[in-house]
C-alpha cells in the first residue's frame, strides 16, 4: 500500500469518512506492506488514522522516512499512559442529587441567617458611629435601582392596568356591574399587583445586577482586597444595597400602582364610559387607606428580601463563569419565589384588614 499526498487535518477535512472507510478495508491484511515515504506532510490526525487502521500497533512491514517516526512514537507514548475514561456513573445519582439539593438549601439558609445577623450588627455599629454610614454607596444604589427603574416599572404598570381593566370590563359589562371596575382595580392593583409586580421587576433588574456585581468582585478578588484593608464587606457592600432597596421598592410600588391605575382608568373610560372625575372621586371611597399601608409594608419587606438574596448569592460566587451565571440565576429565581411566598403569607395574615365592608 503506497500512500501519497498530505495527511494533515487541513488537507483531510471533509474527506475523512471516505478515507477512513478505505483504510478499514485493508486493515485485516497483515501481509500488506505500507509505504509512507511518499507522504508530503503527516500530522497527528493523519498518523492517528493510520494507527487506528493498523489496529494500534506498527504493522510488520512499513517503510517511512525518519522524520515521520516521531509522530508514531508520540502516539505510542500517549497510549502507554492509559485510557481516557470517565468515572462510571453511580445508579443512585438521582438520590444524591436530591440530597445535594437539600444540603444546598440548608447551607443557603444558614448563610443568609449569618448575613442577616451581620447586617444587624452593622446597623448597631452605624447607630453608635454615624460617621461610618456608607452614604455614597447607599445613594448610588438608590439611584441605580430606584430612579433608573422608574421608566420600565411605569411602562409595565401602565400596560398591566390597561389589560386588567379591559378584561374585567368585558365581564362586568355582561353583569351590568360596570362601576365595580373601580373596586377591582383599586384593591387589586394597590394591595396585590403593585407590590408583587415591582418586586419581580426589581429582582430581575437590580437583583441580578447586584449578584453579578458582587460575583465579579469576588472573581477579581476585590472583596478580599476590601477585607485586607479592614473594611467590612457587609457594611460597605451589602448594607447599602439592602437599605437602598428597602427605601426604593416602597416608593416604586407607589409610583407603579399610580401609573397602573391611570392605565386602568383610561381603559375604563373607553370601555365602560366611566369618566375620569367619577373614577378619581370613587376610588378613595371603595379602597380603604389601610391597603396603601399594606402595600408600602410589602414593598419594604420585598426590597429587603431581594437585596439580601441577591447579595447572598453574589458572595457565594466562585471564581469561574459557570458559577457566576448559576448564582445569578439562583438569585433571581429564589428572590421571585420568596417574594411570592411571603406575599401569600401576607395575604393570609392581613385578610381582615383593609377590605371594604
Amino acid at each position, binding site marked *: 500500500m503506497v500512500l501519497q499526498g498530505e495527511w*494533515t*487535518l*487541513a488537507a*483531510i*477535512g*471533509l474527506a*475523512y*469518512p471516505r478515507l*477512513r472507510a478505505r483504510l478499514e478495508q485493508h486493515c485485516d491484511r497483515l501481509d500488506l506492506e505500507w509505504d509512507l515515504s511518499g507522504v508530503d506532510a503527516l*500530522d*497527528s*490526525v493523519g498518523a*492517528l*488514522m493510520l*494507527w*487506528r487502521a493498523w489496529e494500534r500497533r506498527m504493522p510488520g512491514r512499513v517503510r517511512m522516512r525518519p522524520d515521520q517516526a*516521531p*509522530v508514531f512514537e*508520540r*502516539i505510542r*507514548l*500517549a*497510549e502507554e*499512559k*492509559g*485510557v*481516557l*475514561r*470517565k*468515572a462510571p456513573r453511580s445508579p443512585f445519582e438521582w438520590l444524591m442529587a436530591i440530597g445535594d439539593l437539600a444540603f444546598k438549601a440548608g447551607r443557603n439558609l444558614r448563610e443568609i441567617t449569618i448575613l442577616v445577623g451581620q447586617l444587624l450588627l452593622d446597623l448597631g455599629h452605624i447607630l453608635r458611629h454615624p460617621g461610618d454610614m456608607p452614604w455614597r454607596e447607599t445613594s448610588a444604589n438608590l439611584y441605580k435601582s430606584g430612579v433608573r427603574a422608574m421608566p420600565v416599572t411605569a411602562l409595565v404598570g401602565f400596560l398591566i392596568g390597561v389589560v386588567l381593566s379591559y378584561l374585567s370590563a368585558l365581564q362586568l359589562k355582561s353583569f351590568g356591574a360596570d362601576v365595580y371596575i373601580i373596586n377591582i382595580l383599586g384593591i387589586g392593583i394597590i394591595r396585590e399587583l403593585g407590590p408583587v409586580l415591582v418586586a419581580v421587576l426589581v429582582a430581575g433588574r437590580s437583583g441580578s445586577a447586584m449578584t453579578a456585581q458582587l460575583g465579579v468582585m469576588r472573581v477579581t478578588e476585590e472583596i478580599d482586597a476590601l477585607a485586607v484593608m479592614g473594611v467590612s464587606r457587609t457594611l460597605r457592600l451589602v448594607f447599602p444595597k439592602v437599605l437602598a432597596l428597602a427605601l426604593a421598592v416602597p416608593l416604586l410600588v407607589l409610583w407603579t400602582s399610580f401609573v397602573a391605575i391611570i392605565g386602568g382608568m383610561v381603559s375604563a373610560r373607553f370601555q365602560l364610559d366611566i369618566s375620569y372625575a367619577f373614577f378619581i372621586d370613587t376610588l378613595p371611597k371603595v379602597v380603604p387607606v389601610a391597603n396603601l399601608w399594606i402595600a408600602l409594608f410589602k414593598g419594604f419587606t420585598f426590597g429587603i428580601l431581594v437585596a439580601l438574596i441577591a447579595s447572598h448569592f453574589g458572595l457565594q460566587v*466562585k*471564581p*469561574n*463563569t*459557570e*458559577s457566576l451565571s448559576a448564582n445569578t440565576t439562583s438569585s433571581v429565581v429564589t428572590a421571585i419565589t420568596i417574594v411570592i411566598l411571603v406575599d401569600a403569607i401576607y395575604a393570609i395574615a392581613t385578610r381582615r384588614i383593609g377590605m371594604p365592608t
Partner: protein
Amino acid sequence: MTMGESPAIQVERLSMRFGRQWVLRELDFTVDKGEVVALVGGSGSGKTTLLRAIIGLLRPTQGHVRLFGEPLFSGDAKRDRLLRRRVGMLFQHGALFSAFNVYENVAFPLRELKVLDEDLIRDLVRLKLSMVELLPRHAWLMPAELSGGMMKRAALARALSLEPELLLLDEPTTGLDPDRSESFVHLIRSLRDELELTVVLVTHDLETLGALATRVAVLAEQRILAFGTLDEVMGADHPFVHNFFRTGRSQRALQRAEQ
C-alpha cells in the same frame, strides 16, 4: 509566489489606533517559517496589540497582515476561517472555557470541525494531553481546579489541537514559578522542534526569551526598533534596549538561560 516560499507572517505598514492614541505606526514585520520570534517591549508598547492584529482579533486601522502569504481579512468568511485554523494561540491566562473540563476544552475545536468521529477525537485528545505532559486523569478536571502550570499546559494542548503551523504565545511563563516556567519553556521548545512550528511569543521574561527565541523584535515608540538575533538586538543603541537587556539582573537571567 507559492505557499511553501511565503513567510509565515508578513506585516506591512501596520498602524493601529485606539480612540485618538496611535499604538502602532507603519510597522513592518516578517517572520519566516520555522522561526521563534520573541516580541519584547515596555508595558503599553503594543506587543499584545500586534499579537492580536496578527491573529485577526483586531482589525488594523491601516496596513495589512498576511499569514502564509494569504491576507488575514480576504472578505471571504470561509477562507478566513480556514486560515485562522492554521494558527494556534496560547492566551496569557489560558482562556480555557470554564464551563468545560479539560477534555472538552481540547476536544472543542476538533468537534467544531464536524468531520471527525468521537473515537478519533478521544485518541487525539489523549495524544495532545500526553504531548503537554498532562496525565489522563487530569482530563476530567475543571479549569478552576487546575494549578497555574497545568492551566497553561491544558491551554497549550487546546492551542495545538487543530495542528497549527503557527503558534502565538502571550506571556507563556508569566505567573509560573521559576521551576514550572523552565519546564514549560522546555516543553514548548521540544514541541516546536517536533512539530516544526513557527512561534511568536510576547514575553517579559528574559530567561524564556534566551532559551526559546531565534530572533528578537524590540517594540518601542510605536514601531519595531530592532529585529535580529539576541546578540544583534543587544548591540542596538536605544535607551529601552539598554534598560531591558543590560542591567545586572537581565545579564544574570540571560546567562542562566544559556546554561
